[in-house]
């Protein structure tokens, strides 16, 4: 019998790998917490779920990376990283799909998230404005 990992980070990666667009939410206060943790930093409860999120989120900022932080990122250069708002105290860092022009980005605009592959890892990616 497979044991379910207790580590909330491992569970989130696993859910994303199965194609589910979700984040950690506290069962006690409902706070969306990202990056996930064992304890809710808002109410300190230790009971949490992974909850599906609305794929339409608000764009906060972006930056196009021209130098790879590690060799396995070099092939995709330059690539754009975006921040989107996923809760009152939570931002998500994600790749921008290379087909979306950076020039089209406007702070505060709604953008659409979908699970996509980023250098061998499934994670939320901004796929369209």
């Amino acid at each position, binding site marked *: 019998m497979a044991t379910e990992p207790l580590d909330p*980070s491992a569970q989130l990666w696993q859910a994303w790998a199965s194609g589910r667009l979700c984040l950690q939410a506290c069962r006690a206060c409902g706070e969306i917490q*990202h*990056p996930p943790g064992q304890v809710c*930093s808002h109410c300190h409860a230790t009971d949490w779920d992974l909850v599906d999120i609305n794929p339409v989120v608000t764009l*906060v*900022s*972006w*930056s*196009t*990376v*021209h*130098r*790879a*932080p*590690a060799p396995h*990122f070099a092939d*995709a250069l*330059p*690539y754009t*990283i975006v*921040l989107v*708002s996923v809760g*009152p*105290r*939570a*931002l*998500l*860092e*994600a*790749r921008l799909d290379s087909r979306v022009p950076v020039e089209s980005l406007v*702070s505060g605009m709604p953008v659409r998230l979908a699970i996509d592959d*980023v*250098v061998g*890892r499934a*994670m939320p990616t901004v796929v369209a404005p």
Partner: protein
Amino acid sequence: MRAAILGAGESDRTPRPGRTAVDMAVESSLAAVADAGIELAQVDGVVTGYSLTERHLDFSASLSEALGLQPHWSQTISRSGATGASVVVDAALAVLGGACTTALAVWADNRVSGEPEDMTGALAASLNAFELATGPLITTQYALIAQAYLNRTGATGEDLASVAVQFRKHASFNEHAKYRSPISIDDVLESPMASSPLHRLECALVTDYGGAVVVTRSDRAGDGAVDLLGFGEALSHSSILRNPDLFTTGRTAAAISSRLAYDMAGIGPADLQMAQIYDCFTITVLLLMEDFGLCARGEAGSAVRAGLLDRQGPLPSNTHGGLLSCGSGGILHVTEAVNQMRGTAGSHQLPRRPQTALVHGNGGVLGAQTTLILGGR
């Protein structure tokens, strides 16, 4: 009762094979003790920062042993980039609290000579797995904050670049600065993009460094001392993903640390005659200036372009050239302030010795903030 700084010392920063962080810590400590005019045997407290390249169970123990000291009080602290300013706070707390009477506050690292195999890994330790998986540089995390600043305020790339131009001008006066040739705004904007909107010339240098100051109680200090009139520390986050304020208002915990320091000192931003501001990236300086109350939100770039921070302006800042042009390690902002106030800055001494100064360290990605207010005698 206040704490006072008796003297300051820096190590040579020229990289060479076998040069260790402890070597540079020893060299800076002995220089600071000599500058303070005391005997090494009077030192009964030692606080040091950490090394990214060498493993030490307790760096302060390695340094104390190398100096032949058996201090009453010793600590190694890690507050990332804010460490250089924070060792001074800790030394002050120790002498004021009675843990020791005379403390060395030191930070040194051989970030070039050490040639760590995994410096990328060491720096990546400051980001979490959910950030790292997208492929950001440390620069990218600051660049995201910079882009939001430009979007919100209407400031431009030229405003950011003007910070690098200003501190390079100051470095041109400093014979110990790494890069001394003056640069223009165009030079900055034409240097390779690291992570938009930040170009290579907007990012801190990586160099070897060592710096130290001697801290004691102000009633034990003589005429040449520099008083620590106030200090403040504040922490807002570890990951930028948990602090949306950075993107919506641009306000960092430096607004709190500086207010605490001003209140303790009983002065305000208008009373400052010099500032040494942690400048890991150009955006850092603009945000911190606004947090310090030196100008209105969104106006720091125009203030820099108008000469606010110039050697001959109202608030000479990063008079050594800063992290952008002189060398790594926020401890150099501390030693530079003390040297300018004691009139010992040599080739780049300001014409008029400043009587009040703000020194600031920033750590993490704008998470840990430490402000010192210094006063001359």
